[in-house]
């Protein structure tokens, strides 16, 4: 098999075929650029399909008082004011247009009585705001964008006789390296999964839309594609990552059986009477009520049990403490050796309510576990633990154009791979609209960047040779580490030590272990050939997962406060001083991860005025408030 890559010439290469990638590609193609879409799996299978809730956009269909300012406020509150205010502003302003645009592509959202797009309530949003299609909004979004691309291809076919003339999808293709010409992006290097052939895309502009990093965790709701490719590609090309310490975890995800590992168990299971027990059968939450909550929560099981029927005269059961408290408790029980066999705790509703009541109150939960795992939640307890869901951090970008910061030019990022928009915590429904708003912007500005470019950057042969060698190295080694074992080890480190609750000692330990794994990854070896060899694919992905994990661990160690998706047990409070700081990750020449502090951009005065002063006082330093 040849080691010479097949060459392709494009104007814009979009890496990632989820919502953000497809939206960016559509925009680049509409701007007249020859566009390639690189998809790690088949076209239309992206992780975007997993989004159930909806896409948040202040269209005001359900409540006419809703507007972009309210949405902006909700987003900033959700992110604990660490958000890049400009991104949150653009997002809130442009989301409705992006949703309406989807309808012109053929999307069919659920409707209101007067025929408009129906909007539903969701946590953190002041008004009903999520445009939705049942519980499959993500699928609708991806399918709509996919079909729009096909329709553009049909136009090209009518005009030129070739579907692929101006926009082409490279399915099951992975990019392993970005090619640079000086500081400017010159192309991307990768391989075709099916054939194992090497590919070289020569393009002056690259849009990253590769999604998140969840596969670095033991328990995650993310698919295998989420290996942080875009994060790592950007780092290696000289771009920077911000906010990498912020990951969204859910305290109760299924940890066993494997067929449903990572799937979220809604909080309403606990609200309806579900209790948490450790392996000794003890209802342990009573021991984890923090002093500040002591007054609102029950002290005995009897009192807690009375609350379900008589919430006015009794205090709430401690199972209903805030998410991070529940997570912390589960974490401590597991670490004290009182966890379930699969490393979680037991969430039991079967002994608390009669079966028919459970089915009536939790129909989708019951159905899901019955269908996917043959687990009957009316008969047996569930094994639950924190599950990794979404990464708020990502490539540091210019809010308006999506262009990556750092030394590199011609690199753009949109969607989960970009950082800043969601601050320290993402509101449900904001991710789908984020994809559309910033996907479009990235595509548009990539095209504009191209127009301003005096000459096409050139790919150097030396770089191609080096990338080829790196890509083929795991196949060339006769024997070495098994990539699956390495992934498990990495997941164990991240899951156990850089998980939902973090401590200084564990984080330093994690960094040490990550360093060891890094040495082992250098010796990974896989058998078999280049044709659709999952072992080889994983071996190459490991490199990316590792460097991104290091960023997360380093940033988590540095940030000495608890905020949104970052909870430090040794620093449980939110600090206004830390709110002013973004942690920025970069790679040096030798491939070592560097971390520096950078100020969070200050909000423009008119946006400042959207908030009550008393609310801002909770987050901001006196100094910042005084400036106003």
């Amino acid at each position, binding site marked *: 098999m040849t080691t010479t890559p097949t060459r392709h010439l494009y104007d814009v290469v979009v890496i990632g075929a989820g919502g953000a990638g497809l939206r960016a590609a559509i925009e680049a193609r509409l701007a007249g650029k020859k566009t390639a879409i690189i998809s790690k799996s088949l076209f239309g299978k992206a992780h975007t399909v*997993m989004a159930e809730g909806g896409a948040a956009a202040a269209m005001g269909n359900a409540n006419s008082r809703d507007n972009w300012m309210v949405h902006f406020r909700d987003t900033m509150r959700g992110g604990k004011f660490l958000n890049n205010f400009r991104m949150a502003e653009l997002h809130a302003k442009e989301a409705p247009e992006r949703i*309406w645009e989807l309808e012109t592509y053929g999307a*069919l959202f659920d409707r209101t009585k007067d025929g408009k797009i129906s909007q539903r309530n969701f946590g953190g949003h002041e008004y009903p705001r999520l445009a939705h299609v049942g519980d499959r909004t993500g699928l609708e979004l991806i399918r709509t964008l996919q079909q729009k691309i096909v329709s553009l291809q049909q136009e090209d076919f009518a005009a030129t006789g*070739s579907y692929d003339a101006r926009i082409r999808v490279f399915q099951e293709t992975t990019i392993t390296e970005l090619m640079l010409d000086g500081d400017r992006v010159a192309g991307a290097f990768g391989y075709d999964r099916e054939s194992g052939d090497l590919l070289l895309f020569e393009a002056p502009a690259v849009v990253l839309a590769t999604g998140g990093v969840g596969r670095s965790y033991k328990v995650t709701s993310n698919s295998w*594609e989420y290996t942080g490719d875009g994060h790592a590609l950007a780092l290696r090309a000289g771009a920077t990552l911000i906010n990498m310490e912020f990951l969204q975890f859910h305290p109760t995800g299924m940890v066993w059986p494997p067929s*449903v590992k990572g799937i979220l168990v809604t909080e309403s299971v606990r609200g309806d009477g579900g209790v948490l027990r450790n392996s000794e059968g003890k209802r342990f939450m009573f021991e984890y009520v923090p002093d500040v909550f002591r007054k609102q929560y029950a002290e005995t099981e009897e009192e807690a049990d009375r609350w379900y029927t008589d919430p006015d005269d009794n205090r709430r059961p401690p199972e209903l403490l805030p998410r991070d408290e529940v997570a912390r408790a589960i974490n401590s029980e597991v670490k004290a050796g009182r966890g379930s066999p699969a490393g979680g705790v037991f969430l039991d509703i079967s002994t608390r309510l009669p079966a028919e009541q459970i089915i009536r109150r939790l129909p989708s939960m019951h159905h899901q576990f019955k269908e996917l795992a043959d687990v009957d939640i009316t008969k047996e307890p569930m094994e639950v633990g924190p599950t990794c869901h979404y990464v708020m951090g990502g490539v540091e970008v210019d809010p308006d154009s999506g262009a990556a910061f750092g030394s590199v030019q011609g690199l753009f990022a949109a969607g989960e791979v970009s950082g800043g928009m969601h601050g320290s915590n993402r509101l449900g429904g904001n991710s789908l609209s984020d994809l559309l708003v910033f996907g479009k912007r990235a595509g548009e500005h990539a095209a504009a960047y191209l127009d301003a470019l005096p000459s096409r950057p050139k790919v150097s042969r030396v770089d191609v040779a080096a990338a080829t060698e790196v890509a083929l190295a795991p196949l060339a080694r006769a024997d070495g580490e098994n990539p699956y074992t390495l992934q498990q080890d990495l997941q164990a480190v991240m899951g156990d030590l850089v998980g939902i609750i973090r401590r200084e000692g564990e984080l330093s330990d994690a960094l040490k272990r990550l360093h060891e794994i890094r040495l082992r990854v250098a010796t990974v070896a896989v058998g078999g050939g280049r044709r659709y060899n999952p072992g080889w694919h994983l071996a190459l992905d490991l490199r990316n997962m590792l460097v991104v994990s290091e960023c997360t661990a380093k940033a988590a160690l540095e940030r000495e406060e608890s905020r949104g998706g970052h909870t430090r047990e040794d620093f449980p409070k939110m600090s206004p001083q830390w709110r002013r700081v973004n942690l920025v990750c970069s790679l040096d020449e030798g491939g070592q991860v560097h971390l520096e502090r950078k100020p969070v951009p200050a909000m423009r005065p008119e946006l400042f005025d959207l908030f009550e002063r008393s609310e801002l006082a909770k987050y901001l330093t006196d100094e910042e408030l005084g400036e106003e």
Partner: protein
Amino acid sequence: MKRHFRVWRGDSSGGDLEDFDVEVNEGEVVLDVIHRLQATQTPDLACRWNCKAGKCGSCSMEINGMPRLGCMTRMSTFTADETVTITPLRTFPVIRDLVTDVSFNYEKARETPAFAPPAGVAPGEYRMQQVDVERSQEFRKCIECFLCQNTCHVVRDHEENKEAFAGPRFFIRAAELDMHPLDARTDRKQHAQQGQGLGFCNITKCCTEVCPEHIKITDNAIIPMKERVVDRRYDPLVRLGRKIFRRDQLEAAGESVPRATPATAETPSGRRLPESPALGPDGRLDIAELSAPIQGGPSPFGEDITFPLPPERVTYHHPDPS
């Protein structure tokens, strides 16, 4: 507990069922077993998967001969001593092991005319009633696992039909658009019959049987589309009604929408016969390259090389005559 599996391994040049004994835990699905195989015995066993929750439609395979999603087939549906046989989709060319080349479906997707937005309706002004979108919404549940395409005997047992037959997945797409309250095209029925080969379907309903999303493909899409074709071509009462209400003239006016671009350039089957490129409307060859940044295909030597090379970069040494 160890269970016995037979997994087809090989590629287009041949292959066979191989036997494996794999540990199976309670509550696992077939895809878990494949993952365990990859992690412990066969790291290079090729298999597609993504979401592992029945939402993306990647892990289509045949389990004990039935087309299914690996992530939705629980091990508890088999008896403890039963051998589970896992094979790739039969209808499509195999790439390796359980991975098949499903490009047939993507080619058919490109030949289905896309949604045509209504003229003069601005984005944000779309008004549709829930009852009017519900039928199409059912079809948009499709996760494109292509199990229906794989199980349909029209192409499964008759490779030669692949050219003329689009398959159930694209019949529901045609129905979805024909039932879309705001779609501006009126020629969907003709396209379904002439372009997609709707007539090949003999409604034996296997597509509906295997659909993991439980879309009533046959009853709600294929049969209504067949009936809509009948409306246009065969029904006497409808014809009479048209005459009386003079609807025929209205519809004829609507039909001036250009027909779907003819799908001749690429045949859907894997075997492509050599043919001259399609001519444009003016009878001349289209020069697609005009829109490319450079003329002709990319040079295999790279764009940064101009010939002839300067002598110092040539590694060839001319034999010394002396």
